[in-house]
């Protein structure tokens, strides 16, 4: 996806300075220096539209949802359900009943591993993951594998961080029941060929769950074209609030699955003899949901959609190319993850300075980067490193900020070069 800097034509409608004005936190100073926020991959900042939507709920239309006859309950219910419709349109799902509100990607994956897994996995069945999964797309599968006797198989990657499709093809077999894979790696930035991954799995009769945490803020999604069986992402990475996220699932699959948690909202009729469950999506939404969160996430989606994911991607790819070029010019620096198909992530190590020390020095320059294993220890082991420094790009970042990062790394060399 990364285009050459010289052909990166930014559409005139994308004005990063105007976008920056929409994000109040970006005008903050840290240590008397302007905040340079390169940690959107961990959690993105929030535009005024989202902040206002959340306070507006509490100030003008708040009550519990789906259970009151009164005016406020109806208003809150309408707002929340209109957010669900925004999510549906955002990922082009065919049916709004396929949009389940969850706490985040982690809960979405746990829900599928638990509800679908308990019903469909038996001893000897195989689950395919990749070596570059986030821990949240590893551990839930290990837990269900332990309970059912299913076995986990892992697709390797190349030294550039490209998924080994031949190895994937070899791993797929009649025992494969589900493939759970990331759409964009949070540690490396690799974009996986998801349509192809899904097509190959379906040919073998296996389902696919896509971890779309890093993809949702950076690329346009189309569930019907992709044909994913399950797709998860978190609100806080798409410029919305934390504590809310989305599980998309094909209606037929969700209908066949048992509920996740029991409680209010997910029921049809309850007696002590027998309880029948609510229809989709409420069957999977036990208890009072994160009402303001869902509404805030809807506002984030409207905000992103107003700018256009194509415009956002073009801007971010320009920064990715610019940053790759600038960082590659630093002698002792090694980029980790150099796949040709890549988005929004600059992960790197310095030869003689530990990432943690780099992070501390950059922090005092006002630069927020993530240092560590990025909840992806297996991929760190793959590269035989403990940690990287990760600068992740959001729609509000600029070329000037990349220059500040490069200057900050100069300060690191200065301090450690003594």
């Amino acid at each position, binding site marked *: 996806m990364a285009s050459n800097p010289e052909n990166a034509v930014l559409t005139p409608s994308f004005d990063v300075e105007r976008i920056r004005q929409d994000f109040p936190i970006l005008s903050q100073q840290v*240590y008397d220096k302007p905040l340079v926020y390169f940690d959107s991959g961990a959690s993105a900042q929030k535009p005024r539209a989202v902040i206002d939507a959340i306070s507006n709920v509490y100030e003008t239309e708040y009550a519990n949802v789906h259970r009151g006859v009164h005016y406020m309950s109806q208003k809150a219910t309408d707002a929340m359900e209109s957010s669900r419709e925004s999510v549906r349109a955002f990922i082009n799902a065919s049916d709004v009943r396929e949009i389940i509100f969850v706490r985040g990607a982690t809960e979405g994956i746990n829900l599928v591993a638990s509800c679908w897994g308990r019903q469909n996995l038996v001893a000897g069945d195989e689950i395919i993951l990749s070596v570059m999964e986030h821990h949240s797309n590893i551990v839930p599968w290990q837990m269900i594998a332990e309970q059912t006797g299913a076995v986990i198989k892992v697709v390797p990657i190349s030294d550039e961080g490209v998924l080994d499709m031949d190895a994937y093809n070899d791993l797929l077999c009649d025992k494969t029941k589900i493939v759970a894979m990331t759409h964009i790696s949070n540690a490396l930035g690799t974009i996986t060929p998801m349509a192809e991954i899904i097509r190959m799995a379906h040919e073998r009769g296996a389902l696919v769950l896509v971890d779309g945490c890093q993809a949702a803020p950076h690329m346009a999604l189309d569930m019907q074209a992709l044909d994913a069986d399950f797709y998860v992402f978190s609100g806080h990475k798409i410029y919305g609030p934390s504590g809310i996220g989305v599980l998309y699932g094909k209606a037929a699959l969700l209908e066949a699955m048992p509920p996740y948690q029991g409680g209010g909202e997910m029921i049809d009729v309850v007696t002590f003899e027998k309880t029948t469950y609510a229809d989709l999506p409420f069957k999977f939404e036990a208890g009072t949901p994160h009402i303001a969160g869902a509404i805030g996430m809807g506002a984030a989606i409207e905000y992103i959609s107003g700018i256009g994911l194509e415009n956002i991607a073009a801007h971010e790819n320009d920064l990715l190319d610019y940053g790759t070029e600038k960082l590659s010019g630093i002698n002792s620096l090694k980029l980790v993850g150099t796949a040709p198909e890549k988005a929004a992530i600059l992960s790197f190590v310095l030869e003689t*300075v*530990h*990432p*943690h*020390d780099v992070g*501390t*020095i950059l922090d*005092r320059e006002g630069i927020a980067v993530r*240092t*560590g*294993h990025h909840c992806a*220890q297996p991929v*760190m082991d793959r590269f035989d490193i*403990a*940690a990287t420094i990760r600068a992740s790009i959001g729609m509000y970042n600029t070329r000037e900020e990349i220059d500040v990062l490069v200057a900050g790394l100069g*300060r690191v060399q200065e*301090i*450690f070069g*003594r």
Partner: protein
Amino acid sequence: MNDGLTDLYQEVILDHSRNPRNFGPSENADRTARGNNPLCGDRVTVFLNLDGDEISDAQFDARGCAISLASASMMTEMIKGKSIEDAKALFEKFLALVTGENGLEAGPDLAELKTLSGVKDFPTRIKCATLAWQAMVAALDGTDQDVKTE
């Protein structure tokens, strides 16, 4: 530029991190304990030999940042020849130093460890400085549980 960074990364610290003393695994340690910082993936193993109540030898093996390596390196130098009780007491003083707690007088016996006092202005790095020490205490206590920073 006074942003605390040159206090944090004093030359003594850089020297210890580049040429850690008493570094490498030991085959014949009486006590061993590992420390783990799940936040950054850093690991340290401390190897101790005891002669009665006295620490006769101390070594460490680690993968970590400059702060954690320097702290571990200095620690092994400082505790060698100390009694178990004195080594633990030194940790308490060191802890007070790097957390910037008042009330505890740092005292002359901290010696070179004082160069790590800059850590107190970097709260996210305190765990780096204390990891090897916690492992040392765990080794002395003979708890075979790995210590974690959380």
